[in-house]
């Protein structure tokens, strides 16, 4: 059994009297794709925000590669090896497709405080960005502004940014939300490609059961902020408690 790359220990956040995430302890290992499921409002995205640092935990710890990152800012956590894709598309709308990816690689390579050279002179960053765009098949749109892209292409670009970031832990929050039936498989193929790397830990918040069935090695279920089930997809899906109480009829339908 490989060492876990990401561990949350009693992770909790309260907003006033409401406990959004309630003492969630969970370890994620490289080479594993974990789907995080649960009804709306179960705290899935909040749990993600606690891990990537957009929200500070009330109590509990987040450990990445054996290092406590609970007190770090989002950017420091990214530097430490965490990669986060957002549920609502979150890109630089008035910059080009290429620049969106190039900026990620520039951040990863820590060249942002370079004031004297020309950004376009860093050919290696541009070439790598082009290679990533090629992989996600966005090369034709490289000089378009992101705001001119279709929703599906924007989601693809978000995955491209994750690939460019090369984190140890990939966090996808409903990557196919709002995508058409034809577009979604492209994203899923890309995530499958990421998962194929045995060093990559992948966390995936997803509602679509067919997606979970085809990709997930493990499912954890959140309900009212608490972790209520954790196991192999078949086991969790078969669990009557989970089906009826927390996932509704969706599971049995599929």
């Amino acid at each position, binding site marked *: 059994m490989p060492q876990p790359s990401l561990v949350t220990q009693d992770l909790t956040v309260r907003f006033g009297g409401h406990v959004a995430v309630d003492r969630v302890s969970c370890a994620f290992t490289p080479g594993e794709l974990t789907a995080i499921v649960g009804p709306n409002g179960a705290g899935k995205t909040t749990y993600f925000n606690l891990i*990537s640092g957009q929200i500070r935990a009330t109590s509990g710890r987040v450990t990445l590669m054996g290092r406590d990152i609970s007190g770090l800012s*989002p*950017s420091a956590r990214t530097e430490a090896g965490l990669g986060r894709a957002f549920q609502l598309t979150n890109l*630089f*709308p008035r910059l080009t497709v290429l620049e969106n990816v190039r*900026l990620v690689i520039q951040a990863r390579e820590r060249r942002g*405080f370079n*004031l004297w050279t*020309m950004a376009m002179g860093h050919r290696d960053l541009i070439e790598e960005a082009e290679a990533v765009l090629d992989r996600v098949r966005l090369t034709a749109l490289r000089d378009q502004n992101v705001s001119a892209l279709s929703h599906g292409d924007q989601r693809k670009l978000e995955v491209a940014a994750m690939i460019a970031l090369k984190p140890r832990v990939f966090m996808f929050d409903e990557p196919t939300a709002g995508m058409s039936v034809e577009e979604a498989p492209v994203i899923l193929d890309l995530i499958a490609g990421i998962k194929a790397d045995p060093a990559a830990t992948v966390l995936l918040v997803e509602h679509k059961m067919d997606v979970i069935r085809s990709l997930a090695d493990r499912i954890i279920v959140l309900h009212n902020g608490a972790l209520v089930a954790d196991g192999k997809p078949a086991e969790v899906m078969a669990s009557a408690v989970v089906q009826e109480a927390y996932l509704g009829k969706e599971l049995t339908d599929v």
Partner: protein
Amino acid sequence: MMRILSGDSPKSPVLAVLLALILLALAFAPFLFPGSRSLETAARICIFIVLVASYDLLLGYGGIVSFAHTMFFGMGAYGVAIATARMGTGYPALAVGALAGMVAAGLVALLIALLSLRVRAIFFAMITLAIASAVAVLVSQLSAITGGEDGMNIRIPRELTPAFRLGEVMGTGINGKILNYYLVFFCCLALFLLMLRIVNSPFGRVLQAIRENAFRAEAIGYRVVLYRALATCLSAMIAALAGSLFAIWLRYVGPATTLGMEIMMDILLIVVIGGMGTMYGAVVGTAIFVLAQNYLKTLMGGMSEATSALPLIPDLLSPDRWLLWLGILFILSVYFFPTGIVGRLRGTR
């Protein structure tokens, strides 16, 4: 050529011609437009290009609204004045004053940035407004150091004053004032090219990314606060250097010439008219703005006389109404060029 411009081409033939014209006019101003008033205007254009461009670095690239830019400008100017008063006339005093002003501006900017940039952007704007007002009051009260409301006259080395004569080139007498102009011109050119380099560097790209989506920039691993703080410092230091040049050129510094809210408003207007986040907008905007400020009155006087035979029109064109027309010009330009002159020229390419 592209190396000098840091790979940032004007991207519009009209803009390229316009920039070349402005550069040539400023480079040969003493010979093309003899006379002290036109030289005064040319020097003011040079200095304001740098001042406005340094504000564009902050606002147009970093997306940070500051009202303290004239304070930094003033720090550079007062640095030179105070150093000269203490150390006596000479180039060392000018250098020490400019350097001290620049360092002080950088430190104050860093302090403001670290205190307020973590919070919301509007908070930063309010803090800068408060500090700038406080400093303006302080400067007018501490008359023992700053000369108070009267300001300070600066005795600069004789080689930079009109009293120093060198001879004649192309029918124009070369004196120290012209040497002084070229000091201003070349320093401003170098500072502008430096800023062009900064905005096209990896750092400049991060600033644009932060302006577009700070949340995202933070998420992909950029420490937004540090980038914003550095941008604030750089912008303040360059503004201070522009202030030093202004003081050397005018041989005078006072609250109204450097610290006033009117100048802050002028800077804001020029950035918006020229085009935010373009750098070249500062050049075109400043040239048009300063020319209008200085010559619209004269132009209107001429037009008013030329139309004296007609009813009403001479009254409308009376030189006394120049501010009204300047205001109308601004409203029209903001209405028709919401992305500024440079944005417009690049967009309609």
